[in-house]
């Protein structure tokens, strides 16, 4: 019996158990533990951001199509990471952070009053620059940490299936299947990062945000992560911040070039398909940047 088959069986059980909790829109994803692989559209409309009164992003609009990889490129300090953190409401966790504009997930504003940031973050997962598995937890506990955090209880068999599915999707299963009870911090940097991807996938997000996920990794680990991204692409919407131009060209279908002029807040200079942005940019600044003439 394949894992998928087992999963679909138990997922109907789960669905039945929490019929009353499922509503429409954002509340929807509070429930599904075993993901339905539905990618979502993400759209930022006229987003501006401030830190302690200083404007760092000005009027950024970007549409991210479902089941695709969108790369955010640009020099350091141009607001890429801030923009990424706005997309799942991590921005507001910083003291003194402010925001204007809208972010629509499948047409619903994630900043609308009544939407809890915790629910938004369950639907829009995030992988950070530095691998950050929970060091006191085993590999399998790390994968399902998001369920414990959000008080979702699942049976032992479901849990094992979920661990296997998520680790497989993150491309880590074969390397760790014999030592699931060992601490997550004992893995190599690249493996830890894939563990973090598996952990993010376990809560069933529709979008995965990646903030320079490979910048702390060696070339081999980087290639493994890129392979993972390519495999996930069909199931989930991915937005990735990267400093590595070749990486953006390899993994993404769409790209947005961010730039902050001296003393001015950052913004998008140009966005479009990755091929167009790299081979036939409209703006001369984009051309200079992608050809390595600055940044």
């Amino acid at each position: 019996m394949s894992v998928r088959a087992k999963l679909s069986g138990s997922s109907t059980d789960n669905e039945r158990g929490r019929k009353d909790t499922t509503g429409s829109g954002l509340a929807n994803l509070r429930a599904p533990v075993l993901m339905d692989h539905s990618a979502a559209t993400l759209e930022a409309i006229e987003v501006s951001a401030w830190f302690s009164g200083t404007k760092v992003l000005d009027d950024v609009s970007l549409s991210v199509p479902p089941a695709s990889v969108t790369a955010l490129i640009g020099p350091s300090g141009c607001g890429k990471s801030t923009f990424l953190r706005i997309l799942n409401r991590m921005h507001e966790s910083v003291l003194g952070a402010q925001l204007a504009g809208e972010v629509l997930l499948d047409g619903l504003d994630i900043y609308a009053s009544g939407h809890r940031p915790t629910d938004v973050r369950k639907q829009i997962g995030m992988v950070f620059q530095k691998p950050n598995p929970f060091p006191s937890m085993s590999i399998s506990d790390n994968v399902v940490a998001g369920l414990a955090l959000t008080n979702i209880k699942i049976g032992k068999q479901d849990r094992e299936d979920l661990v296997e599915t998520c680790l497989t999707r993150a491309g880590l299963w074969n390397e760790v299947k014999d030592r699931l009870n060992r601490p997550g911090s004992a893995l190599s940097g690249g493996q830890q990062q894939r563990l973090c991807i598996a952990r993010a996938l376990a809560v069933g997000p529709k979008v995965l945000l990646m903030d320079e996920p490979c910048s702390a990794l060696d070339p081999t680990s980087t290639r493994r992560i890129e392979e993972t991204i390519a495999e996930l692409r069909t199931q989930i919407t991915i937005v990735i911040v990267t400093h590595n131009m070749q990486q953006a060209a390899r993994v993404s279908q769409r790209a947005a070039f961010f730039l902050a002029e001296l003393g001015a807040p950052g913004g998008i200079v140009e966005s479009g398909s990755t091929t167009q942005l790299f081979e036939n940019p409209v703006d001369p600044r984009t051309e200079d940047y992608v050809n390595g003439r600055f940044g």
Partner: protein
Amino acid sequence: MTTTFPQAPSLGKRPPRDLNPGLEPSDRIFHGSATMIGMFVLIMTGSIGVFLGYQSIPTLRHYGLSFFTQTSWQPELDKIGIAAVLVGTFEVALVAMVVAFPFALMLALFITDYAPKQIKSWLVSAVDLMAAVPSIIYGLWGFYLLQPHAINLARWLSQHFGWIPIFHVDTDPNAAVWQQSRYTSSAFIAGLAVSMMAIPLACAVMRAVFDQAPLGEREAAMALGGTRFGVARTVVFPFAKGGIIGGTMLALGRALGETAAVLIIVSPDFVIKPRILEAGSQTTSQLIAGNFGDATKSQLSALLTAGFVLFLITLLVNSVAAVVIRRSRSGAGTEI
């Protein structure tokens, strides 16, 4: 300088060079004075231990093991022992810690994770101030302000949990006119007052380690949809485990030795009494402070022996706390 390393023949024909450049004059002065002060602290603590140990010899020789098993303290009858006193000491400390631990933990978590920035600095100062209040003030507070109210809680506890020996009080808790004096001056009330002194100590250590919980892990928990308490549970508490245990034990060390507040509140009673709510108890430091004034030479030696035992217990508790903190992930860089 030529040194030979027979165990490492593969070093080749050039032996390792001397890399010790020697100290600059200013460094040498500072190094010397810092070393002296460091040694002074060690010598002070050590000499206190040696002095107490030396003074205890006649008492221990005279009474032997019965010093630890005898409950009463009647020098005129030559009956002297610290059995009841030790039990009382631990009862007061236990009550103090049962109250102080959850209070300090929540207070520390509130300060690091929940309190708005402006309130945070106020709270930190307030907790530090709590530690600076003289213990005699807590004694007066406990006796005059807390006790009249705390006896109602004591009575309630004995009404509902009287079947547990420690909550039993030898009087009828349900009597229409209840005997208030049976509930006053107990280990329970002394423990409550002592907890006020234990809280800031435990809270300061916990706050320091909570603040060190790595931002990366906090953000990971948040990005998974965790609430603030979820973040505390999955990231902060596991990270700070050593600091929580160590801070608590440090506060326990303080609670074990507390004198003034206990002296004011508790009425002396030399029996081994497992009933913490009932009037009368006795702690080691209270015994010493209460009998020091009119002690003869042999009584003084006995009091110093009691002090020696307290010194050893506190030393043990603090050493264990230090080891726990240092071995933990959060405390690897901290010393207490």
